[in-house]
């Protein structure tokens, strides 16, 4: 069993997203550790990309700050190696197809397995293109995580049946970023997913408050939060770990 399943066995999962190297890798390491201690079930680590087309302005800014600070794929692998000394919860990468492709898919994915990365999320790799990396992911036991969107409709069953790790349910149209309201009929989407797979599903895009997280986790198996955390890191810089820990605790408390 892929380790990711363990994130969903103890109640609803809270999944924070952190862009590696924003504003530097030491801060990322501190935030990951405090998030794990504050009850996060799984951590999504962003490898920065120059042109993140699925991101709104907040995470675009984090990508830019990290790249300006000199973060590379190799340095992110080093960070994960160091974190694995004491962080035991599942961790997955979220990045773009070209970051994996240019590193060499075999080399990238085997290094993921080697350093202790349990899955990868690539928002620009839909079902039709997953053969690009799926065989290599399967070979190394790294889950290639599928996304399902409000527009997926007739595609939900097809995607869910082959999903592994967990399913990332995109809550809303558009790019990442906090939203005051989520209007998609997510319960209907999750219903179709559950008719087709036992793979757990977590909802992301637009979630920032404990109330929203509780509501989303009521529909699915977990909630993913990115931009709200990146905003804290943007505001607090190298002192972000404390406030990130408090925020993660408020969110995990809301899911209990």
């Amino acid at each position: 069993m892929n380790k990711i399943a363990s994130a969903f066995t103890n109640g609803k999962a809270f999944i924070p997203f952190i862009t590696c190297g924003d504003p530097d890798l030491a801060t990322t390491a501190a935030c990951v550790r405090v998030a794990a201690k504050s009850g996060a079930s799984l951590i999504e680590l962003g490898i920065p990309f120059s042109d993140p087309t699925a991101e709104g302005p907040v995470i675009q800014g984090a990508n830019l700050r990290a790249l300006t600070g000199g973060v590379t794929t190799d340095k992110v692998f080093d960070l994960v190696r160091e974190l694995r000394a004491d962080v035991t919860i599942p961790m997955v990468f979220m990045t773009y197809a070209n970051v994996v492709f240019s590193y060499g898919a075999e080399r990238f994915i085997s290094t993921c397995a080697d350093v202790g990365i349990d899955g990868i999320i690539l928002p620009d790799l839909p079902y039709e293109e997953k053969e690009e990396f799926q065989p290599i992911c399967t070979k190394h036991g790294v889950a290639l995580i599928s996304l399902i969107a409000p527009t997926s409709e007739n595609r939900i069953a097809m995607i869910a049946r082959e999903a592994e790790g967990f399913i990332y349910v995109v809550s809303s149209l558009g790019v990442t970023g906090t939203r005051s309201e989520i209007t998609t009929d997510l319960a209907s989407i999750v219903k179709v997913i559950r008719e087709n797979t036992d793979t757990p599903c977590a909802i992301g895009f637009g979630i920032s408050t404990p109330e929203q997280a509780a509501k989303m986790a009521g529909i699915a198996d977990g909630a993913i939060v990115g931009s709200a955390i990146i905003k804290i890191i943007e505001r607090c810089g190298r002192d972000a770990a404390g406030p990130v820990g408090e925020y993660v605790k408020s969110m995990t408390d809301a899911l209990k």
Partner: protein
Amino acid sequence: MTNPNGRFGIHGGQYIPETLMNAVIELEEAYNHYKNDPEFNRELTALFNDYAGRPSRLYYAEKMTKGLGSAKIYLKREDLNHTGAHKINNVLGQALLAKKMGKTRLIAETGAGQHGVATATAAALMGMECVVFMGKEDTERQALNVYRMRLLGAQVIPVTTGTATLKDAVSEAMREWTSRIADTHYCLGSVMGPHPFPTIVRDFQAVISKEIKEQILEKEGRLPDAVLACVGGGSNAIGSFYHFIGDEGVALIGCEAAGRGVDTFETAATIATGKLGIFHGMKSYFCQDKYGQIAPVYSISAGLDYPGIGPEHAHLHDIGRAQYVPITDDEAVNAFEYLARTEGIIPAIESAHAVAHAMKIAPQMGKDKIIVITVSGRGDKDCAAIARYRGEDLHE
């Protein structure tokens, strides 16, 4: 040339967010239906001929030919189209298709502004809403085109992310499309992006080579020895090449923007300096660093200032059917001035890249040879920038 899965050899594909997948599938189904629909084709031909002014002329550039002592040079005058460039061919096709699909709003990216102006024009004609994304740097170097788009009723959104040029405008248009799909068609301006865009745009631009073939056979009774066109994403080039791909005797030459030179970081020559990657929905060649971060490219030409190339060009390069050559800013500016003085034709600075390469090869080719250069657009938009390049303090 397109495989069923939207591939050109290993290139192409659909590397886009799940949110957009049903939109591109719907587009492909609609396109496959309408491309064979007589009524659609009748309407499109009427727009091409009566509105855009097609067929565009194939002009024998006699002074240039004699001045260079070279192969016989013909200019395919896409600059004479309504709105001043080849971009209108694709836009009329896509806007008509979008309208048939029930869409009421067009969004587009633009570099030099020609595609934005063409989209704004088609939107005005067809009574559709129009939003154009344009890199902030480009809105400054092409201020006149920004005004033209606004005059035509479009909203122009300056993009400040990344390098604030064409690639960032594409990214922002893609982001906008994921947020509003139901009533909106993304009118992509080049033979790039996810399938089916590279095929749709090529088919609408292929009218260029269809006409060149008919016109040169009428004038010369034979096919040309070479067809030259500038390449950014590559829409005027694929349009100029398409009906000659099967004619092995016709050399197909794409002219990339080398900027300050392919041995500098200030270049946009993708075939010369890029490597295989996945970006903006497609697998193709891209200017990028060793970790796959997309390079901040540079060219004097806003329309060629893009770090990638369309997947069909990447494939034509792989199989050796087309050749891609880098042309520097200096060479393009010289050609811009040369064509103005010699033939009284001011080409777009993009098109001047193709003229520059013709000036290099035509004198080597023998006077019995024939080459066709596609003048993809007119150069009025570039006059202020070229004046500044030459040290004149001219602002629009």
